[in-house]
């Protein structure tokens, strides 16, 4: 048995024989042709076959995956018929008396280069579509017999360098039990398709293709990211059991999708999701999120060459609010600086960016940027249940200054006759120790707290998150951190306010019992962690967790806390 590791891209476990999917060699040579019209006819024929193939793939995708996923092939069909592509290819064949594959390759390369040089990341990715379409026509021009994934008719694990959009769309769920590739990451096209098809997948293994022969027995573990080549009978049995347990668990989680989050002793908390773009809302709903606990607005500002207009922001906020259909949406105002830079702001380099000019510090100075965002938020507020929070608040003076700007913009909008919601809750991120310590004073003026554990831990432990040599100090379970969290939650409750948490810690299975015991009201995590967390909480008693948390607060080290939590239920 050989075991290799990659990136777990789509959950689940699959055991089957390997099917090697290799893309043919497209080395193209320029040759002189005498009968140019025959060459043009050859191109037309190849286009014709490609068209009918794409039509079939489109229909199949439509039936199996729905309209949205099929749209890509509608665009591919249009590219095949595009006069801007086909005419220059035919002209080239006729004028230069060259072979069709050479002419096509030359013209397609220009379009690929054009897309790759575009400013928008979205349009850059269209180069992949152009390549995909070109390859399809090339197969027919070069007479390459390429066994497409659509022709697979027995249970297999597909092994490939990478999978193109049309490869993944052709995967028949009935036969393709899983796949693994050399390249790719969690957000690459193949990974996204695998998750929507619910096929276990491991991507980015670097060398699976060279390690596996066609017909080898393969286990793909999309939970851990492991790929086992020719496992023993015992290993097959072990993984089959794991697969069964996983299927049972998924079924149990799915039942909880539309249920509230209630502990074993009947206490209710809220499970929310962290999102970066309006598109992420789909995942929140699918995973039973009760709210958006953190909408990171900086993605609106990244990947472009100028600040996003009020209108662009308004549309994004409105979309999220409307799609959440009245459920709370906590929007964090711009948190830029630190490890997140915006080239077009041209900010000076800093010695300690994490301790420097970032987030609300920047917003209070660059009020033009901040006011635009606040106006967009206020205008969007009538479309749902909006909550606003300011990041990186270190002093009450900062909070008051930011709040006053918000109130000023609200008054201006109302004077302009714009409608603004009167029930927007206003809160702060608690990620700086000074704020956590002084939470009782803040609690008198804010509507809620959201604890940002990633930064709170790095600032409390004085350990740079990006520095691997001090990564051992990143200790969410350190009693010092737990005491700060307790201080914040207690301060909020004393004023009748609520406390949420939007760092990694909120979705962490070891932290959840402690946070429940400390009285946390809202847990905001990545959408896929919600159902497992809901299931876990339903089995925990808040009263018992209070006892557990009290014990943890009285321990000396993070290791002791972990041992205490792992001991429950034993």
């Amino acid at each position, binding site marked *: 048995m050989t075991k290799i590791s990659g990136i777990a891209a789509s959950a689940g476990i699959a055991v089957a024989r390997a099917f090697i999917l290799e893309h043919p060699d497209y080395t193209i040579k320029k040759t002189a042709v005498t009968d140019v019209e025959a060459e043009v006819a050859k191109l037309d024929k190849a286009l014709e076959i490609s068209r009918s193939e794409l039509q079939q793939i489109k229909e199949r995708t439509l039936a199996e995956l729905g309209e949205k996923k099929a*749209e*890509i092939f*509608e*665009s591919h069909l*249009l*590219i095949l018929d*595009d*006069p*801007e*592509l086909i005419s220059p290819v035919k002209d080239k064949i006729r004028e230069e008396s060259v072979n069709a594959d050479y002419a096509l390759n030359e013209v397609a390369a220009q*379009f690929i280069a*054009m*897309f790759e040089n*575009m*400013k*928008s990341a*979205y*349009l850059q990715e*269209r180069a992949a*579509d*152009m390549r995909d379409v070109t390859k399809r026509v090339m197969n027919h021009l070069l007479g390459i017999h390429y066994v497409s994934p659509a022709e697979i008719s027995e249970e297999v694990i597909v092994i490939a360098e990478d999978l193109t959009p049309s490869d993944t769309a052709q995967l028949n769920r009935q036969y393709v039990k899983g796949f693994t590739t050399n390249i790719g990451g969690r957000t690459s096209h193949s990974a996204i398709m695998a998750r929507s098809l619910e096929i276990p997948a491991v991507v980015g293994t670097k060398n699976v293709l060279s390690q596996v022969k066609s017909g080898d027995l393969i286990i793909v573990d999309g939970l851990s990211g492991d790929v086992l080549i020719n496992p023993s009978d015992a290993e097959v049995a072990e993984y089959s059991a794991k697969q069964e347990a996983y299927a049972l668990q998924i079924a149990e989680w799915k039942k909880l999708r539309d249920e509230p989050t209630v502990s074993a002793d009947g206490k209710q908390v809220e499970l929310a999701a962290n999102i970066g773009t309006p598109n992420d809302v789909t995942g929140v709903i699918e995973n039973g999120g009760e709210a958006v606990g953190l909408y990171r607005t900086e993605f609106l500002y990244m990947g*472009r060459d100028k600040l*996003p*207009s009020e*209108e*662009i922001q308004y*549309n*994004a906020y409105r979309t999220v609010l409307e799609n959440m259909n009245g459920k709370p949406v906590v929007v964090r105002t711009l948190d830029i600086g630190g490890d997140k830079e915006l080239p077009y702001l041209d900010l000076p380099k800093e010695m300690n960016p994490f301790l420097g000019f970032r987030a609300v510090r920047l917003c209070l100075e660059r009020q033009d940027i901040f006011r635009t965002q606040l106006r967009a938020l206020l205008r969007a507020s009538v479309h749902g249940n909006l909550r606003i929070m300011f990041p990186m608040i270190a002093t009450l003076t900062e909070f008051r200054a930011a709040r006053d700007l918000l109130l000023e913009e609200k008054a201006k909008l109302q004077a302009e006759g714009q409608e603004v919601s009167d029930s927007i809750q206003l809160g702060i991120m608690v990620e700086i120790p000074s704020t956590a310590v002084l939470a009782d004073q803040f609690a008198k003026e804010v509507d809620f707290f959201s604890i940002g554990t990633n930064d709170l831990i790095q600032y409390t432990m004085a350990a740079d998150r990006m520095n691997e040599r001090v990564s051992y100090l990143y200790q969410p379970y350190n009693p010092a951190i737990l005491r700060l969290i307790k201080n914040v939650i207690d301060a909020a409750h004393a004023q009748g306010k609520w406390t949420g948490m939007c760092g990694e810690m909120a979705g962490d299975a070891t932290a959840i019992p402690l946070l429940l015991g400390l009285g946390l009201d809202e847990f905001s995590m990545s959408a896929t962690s919600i159902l497992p967390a809901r299931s876990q909480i339903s089995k925990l008693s808040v009263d018992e967790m209070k006892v557990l948390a009290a014990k943890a607060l009285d321990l000396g080290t993070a290791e002791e806390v972990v041992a205490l939590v792992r001991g429950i239920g034993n």
Partner: protein
Amino acid sequence: MQKTFRIIDEDGIHARPATALVNTATKFKGTEAFAEAKGKKVTLKSILGVLSLGLEAGDSLTLITEGSEETEALSALQEVMIKEGLGELND
């Protein structure tokens, strides 16, 4: 005939709406249709042409139709622009 729009879709003009525009323009066989933006004019019957404009939110885009059905073509294209949430008419 022509009409000018301001792109409001935050993603600019991407493949799906571009596909809808091209499919609509192609329906009107006897009518030429063009898109003009940033000093570049392309045929609306080419998805690669439309995408090559690299349109982003806030950009202005002029749709031009010439031929026997220019009125019908332009109003059909306008409907796509509005229905797809791509842009709004620039008055």
